[in-house]
């Protein structure tokens, strides 16, 4: 095992980790603001990326405008899902399981719709910062991956500030923690939930757009991203976007180090075993906090 191989594994691990983190952050944002585990978070990424691809190639929009279009598409879909389904179900006091089923159903139909209407081709977007690569001791990392890492870190910090520094962020959390308490404190609970889904959709779509220069998007990408994002979010503590970032990078690194350290055949076995061990050692997630025990 050479040093450059280790370095390459680290690069790959961090890059993938940021991808998982971006999806995980969206998932944790939605969970934070609505207590819904969004099984279609990966689909937001696909929607964002696909819209950008189509706007860029079919409609001929400039890249920046297409990116904005993709992000808005994600946000709109998020808003639509809240207004059309979640709100209605929340009124009926639907259980957590049924929200999970809702998002699974939406994920299935969205991915099938993309297969049906857009086709099964994989698509790529041009990388930010050009096709260039950075070579460190024979290990290669694309400029775009560096951008991705920077943006990922920026987004994590921004999200954290948003939740704890802005009233609207606080209100979004409050509304999900105790709806009655929030309503009597003058917070419009339903609107906060819509904002939450808009935010989740936006984050998901941006994440999707950002990874598409590295990973070709196609109709099946969503589920894969959702699973990894879910692992990242839960590993980090679920209600903490910063945790999702840490969780994502941990997962990415464990995966790529398992490949060079053990064997690529057992990559998933090793990565998921490590995941289980981490959770058993830290049952609240890496950055999670234990609540008050007892009475």
């Amino acid at each position, binding site marked *: 095992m050479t040093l450059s191989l280790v370095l390459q594994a680290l690069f790959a691990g961090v890059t993938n980790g940021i991808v998982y983190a971006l999806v995980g952050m969206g998932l944790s944002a939605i969970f934070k603001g609505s207590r819904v585990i969004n099984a279609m978070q990966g689909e937001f990424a696909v929607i964002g990326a696909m819209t950008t691809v189509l706007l860029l190639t079919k409609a001929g929009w400039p890249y920046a405008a297409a990116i904005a279009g993709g992000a808005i598409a994600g946000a709109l879909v998020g808003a639509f899902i809240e207004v059309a389904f979640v709100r209605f179900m929340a009124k009926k006091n639907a259980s957590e399981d049924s929200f999970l089923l809702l998002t699974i159903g939406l994920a299935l139909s969205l991915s099938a719709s993309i297969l049906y209407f857009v086709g099964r081709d994989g698509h790529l977007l041009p990388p930010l910062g050009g096709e260039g690569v950075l070579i460190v001791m024979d290990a290669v990392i694309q400029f775009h991956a560096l951008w991705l890492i920077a943006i990922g870190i920026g987004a994590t910090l921004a999200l954290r500030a948003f939740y704890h520094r802005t009233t609207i962020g606080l*209100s979004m959390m409050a509304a999900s*923690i105790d709806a009655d308490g929030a*309503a009597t404190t003058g917070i419009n609970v339903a609107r906060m939930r819509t904002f939450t889904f808009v935010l989740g959709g936006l984050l998901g779509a941006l994440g999707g757009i950002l990874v598409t220069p590295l990973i070709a998007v196609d109709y099946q990408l969503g589920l894969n991203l959702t699973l990894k994002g879910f692992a990242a979010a839960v590993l980090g503590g679920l209600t903490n976007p910063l945790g999702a970032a840490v969780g994502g990078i941990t997962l990415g690194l464990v995966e790529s180090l398992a490949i060079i350290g053990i064997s690529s055949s057992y990559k998933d076995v090793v990565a998921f075993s490590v995941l289980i061990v981490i959770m058993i050692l830290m049952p609240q997630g890496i950055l999670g906090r234990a609540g008050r025990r007892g009475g």
Partner: protein
Amino acid sequence: MTSLSAGYGALTVLRDVSLKVGDGEAVALVGANGAGKTTLVRTVCGLLRARGGRIVKNGSDITATPAHDLAQHGLAVVLENRRLFGELSVRENLILAETVGRKARGADMRFSWDEVTALFPVVKERMASPVELLSGGQQQMVAIARALLLQPDLLIMDEPSTGLAPKVVKDILLVIKALRERGMGLLLIEQNVGIASEITDRAYVMSVGSIVHEIGPGEWQSFLTDERLVRAYLG
């Protein structure tokens, strides 16, 4: 509020309840367990839809006003079980209320941040810790502080003395008295008639979903000493 009725599912809990709290007046609502007091509070503050009747505040009909708009009408409530945002810090809990209060009243704040936090020194000490880590009584104080920061002219409290040490109850009574002097109205739901009688002028007695007795101004003493009445309505 006139001939209000409400309930859960197939169950009708409130039947034709009418009561009135005057401007700056303090009124108590007492009654046995399960009489429907909490249900009444939830209906008034918009968490439960009224099935009949009207709720009017300062001349405007707020029967159908959603809960989150009631702060604009100067109504604040301390719910049973406090309903705080457990994972948020004490400060964040309070900031949320203050923002809404500021929006409702503009510069003309009745209760400033400093004033309210000074009322509960313990709360001030634990500003940064998540509310769920506080003890039951400490949380109750945060809940009251949060309601005050909404700048209400009518405060509804559902069993605020629950879990509070006698000294704190006394302190709160003092606070409420002070607030009343500044013109705030109060609807107090309280099991402990002793406490209720101390700070309210009038009271309604509720039993199985209806008002069964009214205690007029100055009648508290006679009510409390009348063993028969107390037993009939509260026992």
